[in-house]
């Protein structure tokens, strides 16, 4: 079985951002994404999440370049004011054309 290497971007953000983030990810050209409900704490502490249903965790598997572009977009639009963190990791997939 032929495996292709891809990058996983994992984003955790306050759930009020869900539709905006998804919109921006789609603009950036992600092939797909998966959202799970979450809660947590970071260095910045308390936020609106307290009432409005906590955080969301978004995961998207895609080519490395798009992943880096997404990180830049997040840094520009989200990191400074919103409760939002993100990290990259490596993955392998079959059906590389799908991702």
């Amino acid at each position: 079985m032929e495996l292709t290497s891809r990058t996983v971007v994992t984003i955790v953000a306050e759930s009020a951002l869900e539709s905006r983030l998804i919109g921006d990810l789609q603009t950036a050209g992600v092939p797909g994404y998966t959202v799970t409900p979450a809660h947590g704490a970071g260095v910045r502490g308390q936020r609106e999440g307290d009432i409005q249903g906590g955080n969301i965790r978004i995961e998207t598997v895609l080519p490395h370049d798009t992943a880096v572009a997404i990180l830049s977009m997040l840094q520009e639009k989200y990191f400074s004011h919103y409760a939002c963190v993100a990290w990259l990791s490596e993955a392998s997939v079959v059906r590389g054309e799908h991702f």
Partner: protein
Amino acid sequence: METTSVVELAIANLLSPPVLAFALGLLAVAIKSDLRLPEPVYQAISIYLLLGIGIKGGVALRDSSLQEIWLPIVVTLILGVLIPLGAYVVSSWFTRLDAINRGALAAHYGSTSLVTFTAALVFIESSGQFAEGYLVTLLAILEVPGIIVGLLLASRARKGGIAWGESLQEVLSGKSIVLLVGGLAIGAAAGSVGFATIEPFFGGLFTGVLTLFLLELGIVAGRRLPDVKKTGWGLVAFGTLFPLVAGLAGVAGGLAAGLSVGGAALLGVLSASSSYIAAPTAVRLALPEASPGIYLTASLGITFPFNLIAGIPLYYWYAETLGGLIGWN
């Protein structure tokens, strides 16, 4: 009810199950209990309350003439503009917050709190008073302008301004407005015959469900209390004194517009209460620099408990006293 002393009113309010449940929620946080109402159930109950109150208002609205209702609507719109302006100014007397954070506060205090209104409704009803059914219409009307004015005030201080299209869309299509306005329409269309079929659910259960909801809100508010210390006494002063003034404005406006004592008291509650559903979402997205640790703490940690415990009977007493002065019954 005879003209009653403010103390009797306060006690009757304090001993009602919804307020007691709120106190239990506060206490649960104090003793570090892990008690929480699950999030999906909390969401469902808020849908139930919004839709139910909308429908009941709609049924009542159907019997109101435009003649009777236009003046209260105008007064409400005026309150919807003046109260956030007032909050913006008054908050600068008590705190050192910047314009963006004061705009955020203005958006919250200019808008209104469904649950405070609901608790006041239960208070009025269970003490056998009358209030015009179309007060729910005023609730729906008062939701939005305050948020807009608050964002406007903040946007002047914000480089880059505000994405108005997006923000307005989010407020107007948010669940508060959709359910309140939609409920009003359903109630007006179905009328009391249609309502009879759903009365056991949306009517009979209302106070009980509110009790469960206030238990959870007590927990939510209780978790905000430690922040009150951090934000300082200025915010506490603002969060308790401003409602006293806004509530008076609402009561006076209501009486001037010809509302009954009960109706004027409710408009006072609407004016004095600050939003914790629609406004926070709008402000969070439109004004990310504003600190939720300030506006949510003020709205949910200070003003909401204050109104629930002390404000509701007080605004009623305002209405009764003022109403008596001007010769109302």
